Each structure stands twice: as structure tokens, then as C-alpha cells.
């Protein structure tokens, strides 16, 4: 058993006189806070200081991390840096015609992004499109291309419902039957903030509004001009029709 190991977590009583050992145990079981690793290393083993031993914890202000001493070296509790995928924005939308990501969702901090859209209600059968957006305005130029391969749940061989459009003023984002909600979308958006064509790779599924079939489409969306965008809009063909959730994540570059 190491010097930091405890056999009990004591509760002291009113009026009890504590021994030096009890006070030391109490003082030592907290997590000391140090400015940096230099201050941490200087705080143990000196005259009147605790001898460093396995199980010791500390918090470092300069790096905002908690560390533990394993008997030979200090190690960091939890990830040593931020996750590779960082949630940037998201939330709910209720009974709207369209929703747009906040301005400046796409920034120079990240090159690529992931978008999730999850519809929970649609008031009437609706078609959906998406447009890229800059400085608060959707881009409706004829530079959108949608290349999607679809598979229908019905049909002996799996009926395909492909999309191949170019020179369109928006991306195809499918449709949804109002009665049976299936709609979900995930796309990786590549380099929307870079002065280069924006490309998306991903998929969406929905309940076909005409035939009542479930359809999955997977493929690519391409904006052929080199406009720099900071946001994106998801648009319904029916006013005040869509309710759901969205989330956007940024991929760290390193």
C-alpha cells in the first residue's frame, strides 16, 4: 500500500482533538493546485514537504489538466488535448420554413465540418433543398450539383432513385412524407470557408411522399464556384413545416 492509500474516509466529531497525522492525512488527500509543472515538482520531497508517492493528484493551471503520479512519472487524467471532432453549434427548430446555421459557423479554424439534421415532424408532404450561405444571405447562383445514388425499400431488386443534377440553384436534400417521419441527414462539408469549390460527402434517408417507401441516398454535393461560405441553410418547400434538431461539428486540422 502506497503512502497515499487510505483505509478509511474519516468523519471527525465536534470537539475532537485532531492529531498531526490526521491533519496531514486531511491536507494531503485534496488535489493541490500548481501554476505549472515546475511549481509542482518543487512542492514535493523538500523539507517539511510531502514525499511524492503513487496516487498523488495535482491540477496544473497553465494547461488546465489534472494529473496523477503513477510512482515513476506524472500522467494526465483524460485526453491530453481537445477531441478531434468539436461541436460548434446545434439545437432545435420548430415549425419553420427553413433554418440556417448561425453566421460564421464555418471559419478558418476548421477546414471540414460534419452536419447532422434530424426531422421529428413535417406538417405536409415537403421537398427539401440546401444552400450555402455567406454573410447572412443564401447563395442562389446556379452552381449546385447533386450526385446521389438512392435505394428504395420496395421492389424485388431494390428500386434506385438516383439524383444527377448540375447547374441547379440549390442542392437536393430529399423529401418527406408528413405521416411517417424518417428524415435524417449527415454530410461532411469540405472546405466551405476556403476559396475553392465546396464539396459534401454523405447521405440522407426519408419516407417517400408519393409511395410511402423508405429511401436512402448516398453520394456527393458540389458547389462548383470558389465562393467562401460561413453557413448553410436547409429549406422546405412548405411554409412553417419542419421541426427537428441539427448539430454541426468541426474537424480539427491537427
Amino acid at each position, binding site marked *: 500500500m502506497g503512502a497515499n492509500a487510505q483505509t478509511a474516509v474519516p468523519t471527525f466529531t465536534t470537539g475532537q482533538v485532531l492529531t498531526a497525522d490526521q491533519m496531514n492525512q486531511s491536507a494531503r488527500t485534496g488535489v493541490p493546485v500548481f501554476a505549472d509543472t515546475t511549481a509542482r515538482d518543487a512542492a514535493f520531497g523538500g523539507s517539511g514537504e510531502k514525499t511524492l508517492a503513487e496516487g498523488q493528484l495535482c491540477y496544473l493551471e497553465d494547461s488546465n489538466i489534472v494529473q496523477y503520479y503513477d510512482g515513476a512519472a506524472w500522467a494526465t487524467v483524460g485526453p491530453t488535448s481537445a477531441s478531434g471532432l468539436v461541436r460548434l*453549434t446545434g*439545437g432545435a*427548430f420548430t*415549425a*419553420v*420554413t*427553413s*433554418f*440556417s*446555421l*448561425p*453566421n460564421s459557423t464555418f471559419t478558418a479554424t476548421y477546414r471540414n465540418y460534419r452536419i447532422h439534421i434530424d426531422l421529428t415532424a413535417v406538417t405536409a408532404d415537403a*421537398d*427539401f*433543398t440546401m444552400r450555402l450561405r455567406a454573410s*447572412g444571405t*443564401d447563395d*442562389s447562383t446556379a452552381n449546385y450539383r*447533386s450526385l446521389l445514388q438512392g435505394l428504395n425499400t420496395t421492389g424485388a431488386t431494390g*428500386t*434506385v*432513385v*438516383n*439524383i*444527377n*443534377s448540375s447547374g*441547379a*440553384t*440549390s442542392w*437536393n436534400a*430529399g*423529401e418527406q412524407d408528413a405521416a411517417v417521419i424518417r428524415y435524417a441527414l449527415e454530410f461532411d462539408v469540405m472546405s466551405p470557408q476556403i476559396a475553392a469549390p465546396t464539396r459534401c460527402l454523405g447521405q440522407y434517408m426519408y419516407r417517400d411522399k408519393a409511395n410511402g417507401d423508405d429511401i436512402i441516398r448516398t453520394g456527393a454535393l458540389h458547389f462548383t464556384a470558389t465562393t467562401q461560405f460561413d453557413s448553410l441553410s436547409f*429549406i422546405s*418547400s412548405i*411554409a*412553417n413545416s419542419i421541426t427537428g434538431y441539427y448539430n454541426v461539428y468541426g474537424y480539427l486540422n491537427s
Partner: protein
Amino acid sequence: MSKPIIQIGNEQREMTDAEFAQWQADVAANNQESTRESAVS
């Protein structure tokens, strides 16, 4: 007559005249799923 509601971030508002005109044009042109779907086999 009120215009359709849109949401930007967490804020909802009515479409502006320009946004409403664009949206109406899109719907009228049926620049949506039905015209872009390739042949269903």
C-alpha cells in the same frame, strides 16, 4: 398576411420580402425533388 417563418441559429423571424420572393420562385419553379429525380427504375 404574415410571411413564412425561418430560423437562423436560435432566432426565428419572418422572411424578408426578398427571401419570400426567392422562396416563392423556388417553389413555383418546382426547383425541388420532383424535377431533379432521374428515371425511377
